[in-house]
């Protein structure tokens, strides 16, 4: 079942690519259908997950690679727990959203939808893998569709950005591979559940902290954390809207997920020692990202930098080394995925209509596009951490979890949300409010179902989490509980 879910988009991609040229218009319908089925199946898994039992469920396992000469064994092993399930849900949800909002793509649509679906498979795989090498495999596969999507369907300096994205990520995963192999050699297994049981690492061929650093670099780059963040604004700015949505919504979460699932649960001792450093760079990232956000002129770049800031909260929460902080961190991944995804959808819509993202050129859009404005305000408010919307829940949980351990750094993080209010509101003030500009008199509001539907669904999700977060939070707690326990 889970395997089917993971590879369903891949099959869909194959189907789309193999469509004959004259059937090209079908491609988006096939893609949407496949994504919708995947979403439905994930929802089913979400409901079917036994919350009382917790732990990994829906496990599917097979030996994939076996070496007789050494204990080098790789498994195809997938399964879900409280941490991965919501992220899987987020992935499949945003996967569908991404396809819907690219309904009007007309440049090589078959390839486009196929790559989107391949991307979805790789992301589903990342969050479901129970074998570290398998995780790494899915982690790397994701590069290819991203590379194509940015470089072919992007805008602006797309080729440079695609490069930057790929090389940065590849750089990080290079270290991760060595880290994984060293770890696997030390522990004698790559199985994540078994790795979760090994004790402190003492006599590895390189010190435990070195293994930890090798692995976490990749995650920090992906998250991204200052100073490894400069790929993000470029990639976001030049990627097509749907890809920005996935990138902000899901791809960054791979980093956070990795930190929680790999770095922290496998090497709790090192993580504990490192927590103060991690919290420091997290706080730095939050403030740095926020400061950078304020002066951006390009809407997408602005949101991209805000992601840098917001993903800092994930690391901050993680460095709390406690259930509350970890839950907050994982919650933050989910809510940031929804909120920033929505922001990118909206910016994409504005860009599609106005053909510019320069804040200085835009003004008074609220007159022409009340619906988009309303949604922008909702998403913006959620992003700045307004209570009753999703962002607040996760951020406050992060703060509550972290404050005890890192008082000063958490305070810095709290200051970050004041910045968030600043850049979000200032942006809305400049772009949407103000006199109606005759230059924009011809713009139309979002009216099509494939525009409104995703936005309303995202709003509903943001509200649902914001008002009653327990339905997600309990699940996350089940997921991070064991990790927190190991962290002691």
């Amino acid at each position: 079942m889970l395997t089917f879910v993971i590879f369903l988009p891949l099959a869909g991609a194959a189907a789309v690519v193999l469509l004959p040229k004259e059937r090209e218009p079908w491609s988006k319908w096939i893609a949407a259908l496949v994504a919708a089925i995947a979403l439905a199946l994930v929802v089913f898994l979400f409901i079917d997950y036994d919350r009382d039992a917790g732990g990994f469920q829906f496990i599917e396992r097979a030996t994939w690679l076996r070496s007789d000469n050494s204990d080098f064994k790789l498994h195809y092993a997938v399964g879900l727990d409280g941490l991965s399930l919501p992220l899987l849900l987020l992935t499949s949800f945003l996967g569908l959203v991404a396809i819907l909002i690219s309904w009007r793509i007309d440049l090589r649509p078959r390839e486009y939808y196929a790559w989107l679906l391949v991307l979805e498979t790789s992301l589903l795989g990342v969050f479901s893998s129970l074998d570290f090498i398998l995780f790494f495999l899915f982690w790397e596969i994701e590069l290819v569709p991203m590379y194509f999507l940015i470089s072919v369907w992007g805008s602006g300096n797309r080729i440079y950005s695609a490069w930057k994205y790929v090389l940065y990520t590849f750089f990080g995963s290079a270290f991760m591979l060595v880290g994984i192999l060293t770890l696997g050699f030390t522990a004698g297994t790559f199985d994540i559940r078994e790795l979760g049981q090994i004790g402190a690492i003492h006599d590895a061929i390189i010190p435990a902290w070195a293994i930890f650093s090798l692995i976490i670099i990749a995650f920090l780059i992906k998250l991204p954390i200052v100073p490894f963040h400069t790929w993000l604004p470029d990639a976001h700015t030049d990627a097509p809207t749907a890809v920005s949505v996935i990138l902000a919504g899901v791809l960054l979460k791979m980093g956070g997920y990795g930190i929680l699932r790999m770095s922290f649960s496998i090497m709790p001792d090192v993580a504990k020692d490192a927590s103060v450093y991690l919290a420091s760079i997290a706080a730095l990232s939050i403030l740095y990202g926020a400061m950078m956000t304020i002066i951006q002129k390009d809407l997408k770049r602005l949101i991209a930098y805000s992601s840098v800031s917001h993903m800092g909260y994930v690391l901050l929460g993680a460095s709390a080394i406690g259930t509350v902080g970890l839950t907050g961190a994982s919650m933050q991944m989910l809510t940031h995925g929804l909120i920033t995804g929505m922001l990118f959808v909206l910016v994409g819509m504005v860009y599609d209509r106005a053909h510019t993202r320069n804040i200085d050129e835009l003004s008074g859009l609220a007159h022409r596009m009340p619906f988009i404005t309303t949604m922008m305000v909702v998403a913006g408010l959620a992003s700045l951490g307004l209570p009753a919307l999703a962002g607040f829940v996760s951020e406050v949980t992060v703060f509550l979890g972290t404050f005890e351990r890192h008082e000063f750094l958490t305070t810095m993080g709290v200051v970050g949300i004041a910045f968030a209010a600043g850049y979000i509101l200032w942006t809305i003030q400049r772009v949407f409010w103000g006199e109606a500009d005759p230059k924009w008199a011809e713009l139309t509001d979002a009216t099509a179902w494939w525009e409104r539907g995703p936005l309303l669904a995202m709003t509903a999700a943001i509200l649902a989490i914001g008002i009653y977060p327990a339905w997600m939070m309990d699940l996350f707690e089940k997921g991070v509980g064991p990790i927190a326990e190991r962290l002691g």
Partner: protein
Amino acid sequence: MTDVIRLGPELALLIAAGLIVLMDIALPVSREAARTKRALGFALALAGVAGSIGWSAVLIAADEQGEAFSGTLVVDDFSLFFNFLLAGITGMIVLASADLLARTRFHAEYLALVLASATGMMLMAGAVDLIAIFVALELQSICLYVLVGFLKDSRSAEASLKYLLLGAVSTALTLYGMAYLFGLSGATGLRDIAEFVSASGGDSGTRAALVLATVFLAAGLGFKMAVVPFQMWVPDVYQGAPTPVTAYLSVASKAAGFAVVMRIFLVALGEGLISSDWATMFAVIAAVSMTAGNLMALVQTDIKRMLGYSSIAQAGTFLIGLAAVAAQDPQLLLGASSVVFFLGAYAFTNLGAFIAVIAISQKIASDEIADYAGVAKRSPWLAAGLAACLISLTGIPPTAGFIAKVYVFNAAVQADLVWLALIGVLNGVVSAYYYLRVVLNMYAQEPASEETFQPSLSLGVAMAIAVAGMFLIGIYPNPLIQASESAAAVFG
């Protein structure tokens, strides 16, 4: 008789080569006959390859393994693995040469030389006596000298000159090294040399001579493996040689080089102090090869030359496996099997890439990477195949390159060579730039012309086989892993 049976795979190729030459002489010279001869030669060559593969399979099925020809040749899992690999590569090269053959009158000679050099390569993998190794080495070398110059134009001839000159120097080095090895041990059989090396090798009286012999051998064979600093010929020759021959050099010749290096170093020099010496040497060479190869590839504009530099880097990566061999038993096998596995995986990938280059370059009449712009629009399947191969070379899943990367770096880590693994993976990042740049050119740039094109049938088939194999290894690597481990088990 046993001897001949065990020589079967090689004989199949030789017989095919002989028949091709005879057929060429026997049939009359005429327009119709030329076409028939070409087709017949093509078929005979493929039949020879098939026979070779089939015979190897028979040897396995009949469990017909062991020494032959008074201990100069051995049929074991290692040599059988290389039989399959080299015969397979040869078949692919024959397929890939179809277009080249159509343009030359020496098609019979071409095929005969390819098959003869393949025989030499197989013998290199199977020979366990220095004399046999030397002669086999030379057989394939001399055939390749000619093949490199086969186009007989200015560039091809120059490439041949360089290849020959460096090759001859390397042969001299090898020979001198072998002489010292013989002088030290009094034997030419690898097992006998191993006895000497493990008994007294490395004591202070003979150490200098042993080091000298080892280095000379490594240098002479390093020419075949194309590792720094014995790699200088590679880019020039790759660029100048006919593309199928380039592919052959980069895959088969390299594989045979590694096979013979593994035979000599693991069997004869695998024990005693000297093994840690050469392991360190190989580790350094690996690091330098990867770095230099990748760095130099960065700014190349000619795709064949770029692939040449990249193959230097790849060779460095294989060497990691050899360097990892120095440690104790189980690791030794992992290092060796990682090299074998990598060679297998790399064969499909590189062949795929070269075949695509043959097909594309011929149509766009250029080897310049810049001219690959927009090929995805003009020939989607070729572009996709080339892109897949380049992605595999980069080491991105789900391709053979990824598994190979994981496997070989795993061997390095297990042999305590974390630093080498780190250099290796970081080099992977560098390599991503120049590999994916080609992909980018094909997909994200506008084509100069809208005219579409298709590869010829034989190229298409070869391409399909290569790409399918590459993905198959990437997705289900177990059979190849098992095969390479049993091959490596020979050295256990």
